């Protein structure tokens, strides 16, 4: 009963941790007023695109949240190309051609990144099966073959022997 309670508590603590981890932190914005496009639709596309483009100077920030001068230049280029009528893929391709896949905060799925994208899933599945096999084997060990008649009789005899001196 106590173990069940402890397990429940642990689960609850984990759930709270995960909730905290997934609450989005307040987004920091570096877009300057004079960069903002008049057309709200294009501006929204620019913001969405910028969030997935890495600032090559600060490297773990998107150009949408970075104050670096290169990030500003890239934001302006994204907007210029939107106005010129480029679609989202053309804009990202423009940056990838110059800065490599590293310019994208979300790496593309291709043969060289299969290990990155699918590796964790494969490991998790393997681990899952390993745990199942382990548990199945342990159950076998915990439940030995039932005693046959002779063994049962011998056990009763042994237990009776033990009991006598204490009485």
């Amino acid at each position, binding site marked *: 009963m106590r173990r069940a309670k402890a397990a429940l508590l642990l689960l609850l603590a984990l759930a709270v941790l995960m909730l905290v981890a997934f609450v989005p932190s307040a987004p920091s914005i570096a877009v300057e007023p004079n960069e903002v496009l008049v057309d709200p639709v294009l501006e929204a596309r620019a913001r969405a695109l910028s969030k997935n483009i890495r600032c090559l100077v600060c*490297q773990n920030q998107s150009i949408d949240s970075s104050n670096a001068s290169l990030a500003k*230049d890239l934001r302006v280029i994204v907007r210029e190309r939107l106005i010129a009528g480029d679609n989202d893929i053309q804009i990202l391709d423009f940056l990838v051609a110059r800065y*490599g896949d*590293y310019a994208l905060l979300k790496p593309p799925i291709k043969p060289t990144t299969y290990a990155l994208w699918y590796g964790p899933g494969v490991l998790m599945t393997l681990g899952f099966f390993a745990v199942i096999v382990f548990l199945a084997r342990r159950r076998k060990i915990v439940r030995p073959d039932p005693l046959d008649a002779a063994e049962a009789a011998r056990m009763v005899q042994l237990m009776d022997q033990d009991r006598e001196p204490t009485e």
Partner: protein
Amino acid sequence: MNRLIYILPLLLFAGLAAYFATPILQGKNPHTLPSAMIDKPAPLRPLEPLLSSKPGLGPTSLTGDVQLVNFFASWCGPCRVEHPLLMQIAAAKTVPLYGVNYKDAPEAAVNWLAQLGDPFERIGRDGDGRTGIEWGVYGLPETYVVDRAGRIQYRHVGPLSRQTFEETIMPLVNRLREQNE
């Protein structure tokens, strides 16, 4: 056989640790990015000259010989560090050295060169940094090796060291010269 299974996780971990430790022990800077422009034509729209006494850079300036193209700016601290080496390279005349003055005020750049010396054969002005973006520049100084056909063959990010120049760049320059002859 069963024993081996218990050692397997340890071996896997050791392999992974060795894989991750190697670049750290070799002193590689994880912030240095590989260039996506290797083997691509160096993009060059006409860049106006920084100095009236020296030509700027244009689409045709990067053919002929193998050359180094150095992105620099007067506001860039590390550029000052590599400058003496650039002066020596220029004095030795082993390889043409071209400069791109990146997002800099012209007067500041001219003063900077007057003070520290001018190692470049040509200097183009990239005032808005667009040429830098075309080349994939992200952190000054950057030095590129451009072959005779005008293709980028190598990029070095950060101040150039004598070791990098002598052990990596010059052998590459010589190799490229032989290739195209």
